[in-house]
């Protein structure tokens, strides 16, 4: 392959995308990597589903360093991939930096935010994690007999505090005297993949009386779920449906449909509608998981209460406080 041939390829790809919108989509995973059993893997699953259902092909890359963020965006845009879908909030600044140079390419930032007024070719997809967490918080408080429930977060960042805050509000809505113990695994990205530490934190919370623990910690959460199952208490999974990991021991999972976001972005292809999209309960972007594995754990009362709250939130009658809106939480101190 010479430079000339590559340039020809690029020109051909560009010509195709301009003419008939036949360009392939590209997907850029955040530093956590493609197979993190959580957030990035959900994106991968969405892309795989798209490829299987449409027979299309896409290119993806796992980033290795900060400097590669912009590089990857530019390389994919120059090669004619459209849309370029990215996961993780760290991609939004690089997208804001390059979007203007490639006006014909659509960029998607999942979990990130880019001002649509400045960059009309960017779609920001955000999730209302606090709403989904609120629902599982309610379920946790109802399932708890001790009145104490736990939360294990991954890296201590505002996004995870948003999960914790919604969870605590849900729990306090059911039982105002409920005690919520919140712990973060760490302060570096290593905290996303430390199941041993997750297990230790779960044990510490159990010794403080917690009998339901919500893990919003990526790979670390697998250790939390395992320990909870071993110690005979309940746990709550995150992002994907993790009920199957320990049938009958996982109360529910807080779903965050990253896969749906990727799937829909790829399906719309180059004609993608840009702007800001917030996927909440109403859009089924977040929610709680109910299947055969946890059917016995979720009583009819529980389900009725949670579904009622869900309706109220969708209708706007019940507002769940979003930690990231003012960096504080009425129901929980960090």
């Amino acid at each position: 392959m010479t430079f000339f041939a590559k340039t020809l390829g690029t020109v051909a790809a560009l010509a195709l995308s301009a003419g008939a919108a036949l360009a392939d989509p590209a997907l850029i995973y955040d530093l956590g990597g493609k197979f993190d059993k959580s957030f990035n893997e959900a994106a991968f699953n969405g892309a795989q589903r798209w490829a299987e259902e449409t027979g299309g092909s896409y290119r993806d890359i796992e980033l290795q360093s900060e400097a590669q963020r912009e590089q990857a965006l530019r390389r994919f845009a120059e090669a004619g991939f459209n849309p370029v879908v990215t996961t993780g909030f760290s991609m939004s600044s690089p997208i804001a930096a390059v979007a203007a140079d490639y006006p014909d390419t659509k960029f998607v930032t999942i979990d990130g935010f880019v001002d649509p007024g400045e960059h009309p070719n960017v779609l920001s997809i955000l999730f209302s994690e606090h709403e989904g967490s609120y629902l599982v918080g309610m379920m946790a408080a109802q399932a708890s007999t001790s009145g104490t429930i736990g939360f294990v977060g991954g890296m201590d960042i505002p996004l995870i505090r948003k999960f914790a805050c919604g969870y605590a509000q849900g729990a306090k809505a059911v039982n105002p005297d409920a005690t919520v113990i919140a712990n973060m695994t760490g302060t570096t990205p290593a905290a996303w993949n430390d199941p041993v530490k997750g297990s230790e934190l779960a044990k510490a919370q159990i010794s403080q009386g917690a009998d339901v623990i919500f893990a919003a910690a990526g790979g670390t959460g697998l250790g939390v779920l395992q320990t909870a199952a071993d110690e005979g208490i309940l746990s709550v999974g995150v992002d994907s449906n993790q009920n199957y990991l320990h049938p009958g021991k996982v109360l529910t999972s807080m779903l965050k449909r990253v896969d749906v976001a990727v799937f829909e972005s790829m399906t719309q292809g180059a004609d993608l509608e840009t702007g800001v999209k917030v996927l909440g309960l109403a859009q089924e972007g977040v929610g709680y998981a109910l299947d055969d594995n946890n059917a016995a754990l979720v009583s009819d009362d529980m389900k009725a209460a949670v579904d009622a709250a869900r309706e109220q939130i969708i209708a706007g009658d019940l507002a769940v406080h979003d930690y990231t809106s003012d960096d504080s939480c009425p129901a929980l101190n960090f």
Partner: protein
Amino acid sequence: MDRMPAWADAVLVPLISIILAAFLSALVILAIGENPIEAFKLMVEGALMKSSGWGYTLYYATNFMFTGLAVAVAFHARMFNIGGEGQAMIGGLGVALVCLYIPFPHWALALIAATLGAAVFGAAWAYIPAILQAKRGSHIVITTIMFNFIAAAVLNYVLVNMLRPKGAMEPATAGFPEATHLPTFFDMFGSPENPLFRSAPANVTFFIAVAACIAVWVLIWRTRLGYEIRAFGHSETAAKYAGISPTRIIVITMLISGGLAGLMALNTTMGEAERLVLNAPEGAGFIGIAVALMGRSHPFGVFLAALLFGFLYQGGAELAFWANIPRELVTVIQALVILFTGALDNMVRMPLERLFLALRKDS
């Protein structure tokens, strides 16, 4: 003299090591069913055959030059500074504070101030392990590596609780003001008609890194302090006998080392990201150890080794882009090079030394 010629020591040994590493990497690539020659072509094409590829190669090389020099200076005093990572993180904090809170009229002034900020913060972070080593005998290897973790925690705290703009999700500072943006190679050498180095992150910091290489050479081989550092490195007791204070040498060497590591933040924080992000050094502090080992702690060697690692990083990225080679394998290839050039140095050196001696006896 039972030593091999200097050129063999400086050139032949690293060269053989690299060839061995390349050979093993080729086997690894073959094993996952890819074509190693194609992969190598991709790496060379992506890293060296285009100006934007060079822009990335030199950007990474700049990082490695600073951290490599930091480790090399400490090596001359027989100290193993593996805290380059933490010192670079805290150096980044110095850069961020200078850039965010002082209104600069021009980038040149900002660069001078940020250079000072980075060096002072990096040096300050190295000062504590240094003083503990000098006064209390706490081993520098243990303390510097522990300080990496403390630096990460400090940075996280500062970013999350103090410097993060309201409402922002990412633990990072706001973007630096326009006046502090450093000219990139594209700004310096390219133009709209001639897009040399377009969109690559290499910037003016590269020249500071080169200047630092020269400065370190002058320091180590042309100044009294450098002589004292080397004397101390060769024998602490002899140095003491000659009236050199070990405390003074340990502290000063570590301050220089930490300052150099801190300077790396100029490139990543001020030159590339134009804001301070968590984990800005990305392991360059550790790569610096391999760079210093491979460069035989000589600034020119460090320069060349940094270029090689810059090539490996950028070439590795190209592999990940266009070949079906997973990210982990790119790391394996990079690790093989480090293993052979750094850790297994003697494996090549000793047989080679014997070979040269045998040849000399014959003649």
